[in-house]
């Protein structure tokens, strides 16, 4: 019998292409380093320990939000409600953080609970109703904002305990606590994504939902966990923010969801699902932070900064799309 040779692509060529894609993946890292180099040349203030510490501290809140939304986007979803979750958490945590009332653990836990609940609510509605996540979380965004205003009667919640304010404003062995929190959760989220069954299932659900289902993966369970996790990370960002500004702010976090989504996308997470890494998202968040810091140092007004940021987001996605079409 004739047994024709399989018309496979040449494995060596394929391996080479895979490697090239790998380099493409680091493109954002290279861009980040380049921008840092340029900024250090242009403004001598940029490359100082104190400035870089400020940048990372500022980035930490957006990065935490972006980690959560990265999980969601990898499963093929989106979460627009995290900015409002920040506000709800901020108000809730602050209400329990007045001096000489509760131990510091209480505002932290109640804040987290608020965020997890909002996230679980998103997950529940999305899995039970089959309404697109965009719509559901858009609704939750408005609900959350309303809740924050109701709970605080529209006023900032001030007079917070020192121990609570330490979370966002303190230092441990000379390192600002937000940076430590950022690193811890970066490692945790990376491990969840790369080393656990849950992480693998996230990629599977986002990569091909029907095939994931046919492989015995419970789609609803994965989505439920992912949205809850995203709410929890948003709560953490909210607590950090509240502590840094030493007030519970019902108006906090407006538009934060867009910065977080931008960080994830700049970092290579595809909005169609199935791809993305925490390292990419962290670099995306750092890139956003470094650019706005650099523009600040160069005395560029925030109006222009927004234009620059928009161009970078579109540029990152266009590059990524070109890269994919080439393959």
């Amino acid at each position, binding site marked *: *019998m004739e047994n024709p040779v399989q018309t*496979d692509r040449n*494995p060596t060529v394929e391996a080479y292409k895979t490697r090239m894609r790998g380099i493409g993946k680091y493109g954002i890292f290279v861009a980040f380093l380049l921008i840092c180099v340029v900024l250090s040349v242009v403004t001598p203030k940029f490359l100082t320990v104190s400035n870089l510490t400020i940048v990372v501290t500022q980035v930490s809140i957006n990065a935490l939000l972006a980690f959560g939304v990265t999980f969601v986007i990898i499963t093929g979803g989106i979460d627009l409600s995290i900015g409002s979750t920040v506000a709800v958490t901020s108000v809730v945590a602050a209400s329990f953080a007045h001096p000489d009332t509760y131990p510091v653990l209480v505002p932290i836990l109640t804040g987290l609970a608020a965020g997890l609940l909002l996230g679980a609510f998103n997950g529940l509605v999305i899995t039970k109703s089959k309404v697109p996540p965009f719509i559901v979380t858009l609704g939750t965004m408005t609900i959350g904002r309303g809740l924050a205003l109701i709970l605080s009667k529209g006023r900032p919640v001030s007079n917070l305990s020192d121990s609570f304010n330490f979370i966002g404003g303190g230092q441990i062995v000379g390192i600002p606590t937000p940076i430590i929190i950022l690193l811890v959760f970066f490692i945790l989220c990376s491990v969840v994504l790369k080393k656990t069954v849950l992480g693998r*299932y996230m990629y599977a659900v986002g990569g091909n939902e029907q*095939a994931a289902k046919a492989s015995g*993966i419970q789609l609803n369970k994965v989505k439920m966990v992912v949205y809850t996790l995203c709410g929890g990370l948003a709560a953490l960002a909210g607590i950090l923010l509240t502590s840094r500004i030493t007030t519970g702010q019902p108006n906090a976090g407006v538009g934060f969801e867009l910065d977080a989504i931008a960080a994830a996308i700049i970092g290579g997470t595809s909005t169609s699902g*199935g791809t993305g890494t925490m390292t990419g998202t962290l670099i995306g968040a750092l890139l956003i932070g470094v650019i706005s810091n650099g523009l600040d140092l160069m005395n560029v007004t925030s109006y222009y900064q927004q234009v620059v940021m928009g161009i970078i987001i579109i540029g990152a996605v266009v590059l990524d799309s070109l890269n994919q079409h080439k393959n």
Partner: protein
Amino acid sequence: MNPDYILTVHGLTKTFSGVKALDQVRLKVRKGEVHALMGENGAGKSTFMKILIGLHTPDSGEIIFEGSELKASNVNEVLKKGISMIHQEILIVPELTVAQNIFLGRESKRGLFGWIDEKSLNQQAAILLEQMGVTIPPGAQMKSLSVAEMQMVEIAKAISNDAKVIIMDEPTSALSEKEVATLFGIIKNLKKKGVAIIYISHKMDEIFEISDTITVLRDGKYIDTKPAAELNTPSLIKLMVGREIDNMFPEPVTQKGDHVLSVKNLSRAGKFSNITFDVHAGEVLGIAGLMGAGRTEIARAIFGLDPIDSGEIYLKGKQLIIKTPQDAIRSGIGYVSEDRKGLGFIPGMSVKHNITLASLPNHTKGLFIQDKSETATATKMMTDLRIKTAGPDQKVTFLSGGNQQKVVIGKVLLASPDLVILDEPTRGIDVGAKFEIYKLINQLVAQGIAVIMISSELPEILGMSDRILVLSKGQQTALLTREEATQETIMRYAVH
């Protein structure tokens, strides 16, 4: 050159990634005739028609339409010249009205700004529908119509396009008997006006009722063209399947064991009813039938992808309640879908991750994946199945169809099933890879796994199965032994 022929095709060849879908196909269609195009699933009918309407470009060959060569590369151009197709899945805009759908893209305009003249659209549509003898209000929204009515609107659209050749692909698959009669009335009217119809259908009785000439394709090749009057059902089936079984299939190693799966009176409304069969360990049960006979639907129901309305499923004597694929996998049922891209693999994931996806809990400690054990298992399966890749980390999307299929089979096998359902396991993969899949099926059987193989390719069914379940329109019409089964008997029961 006979001027009677409105459409002449010869030497048409089309290759998809190395596989010849069409090989030197020819066709001659006269004005005002109904020309049936027959062939098994995969014979190349759809590809042929897609080339005719300009969806695909042929590698070589010539299409002569009304005396001049048709060299159009897009659907609109072909449409304007007068070739229309009524698709199997009706293409309509549900929110628009009947008239708006008929004249979509060719609206008559009025005035300075080119407002659409709805009134004239409706009038034209009304005249058209009346000529066809159907009563559908031109102002009705498309989505309010029945499938049959939608089809009539599609035909009206083709007529309004001044179609000289209308291709109908399984037009009666969703119609009631009465509606079929109406359709045939319209077809006869069209014939009188000199319109030629290329008619594709699996229903033998229809073919002989409506067609004047029959052309048969097989394996992408032209077989014969005959006047319908010179053929009957058996002789036509013989033309369609008439190849000899070659030595494609490795020697079977059947050691029939105990009952593995028993299905009793399984029904799902509108899909299949009262399906009852057993599969034994070490046996291949083939399921044959035409497209839409309910083969895949039964597999999906057993695997928990679709619900059942009634009936019982037993695995090794124990009754199962299967609600999700997860239930099925845990009970020991594996399913390799016909829809490899849609249900089989995650394209952006590596071979390794795809292959372990259904059995990942076997490689975990607590929440964490044990990379070493996962890699070892995946690599072993890749070697066993001879999956050709650059390595376990290569993405599945870059593999050939045959290797992708092996990845899916590997995934299913790693969940250690007692029963494997293979739905069109060799669809779209080349001959060499097909042979390997067949060998693999025999290996599974030798290990005492029960196999259900659904296939549209009769030689494959005959070559691989110990017993063959034949379905027709959701009913089981025969359960044949290997000795009883021939291509002709299977086809006879399949068109039952």
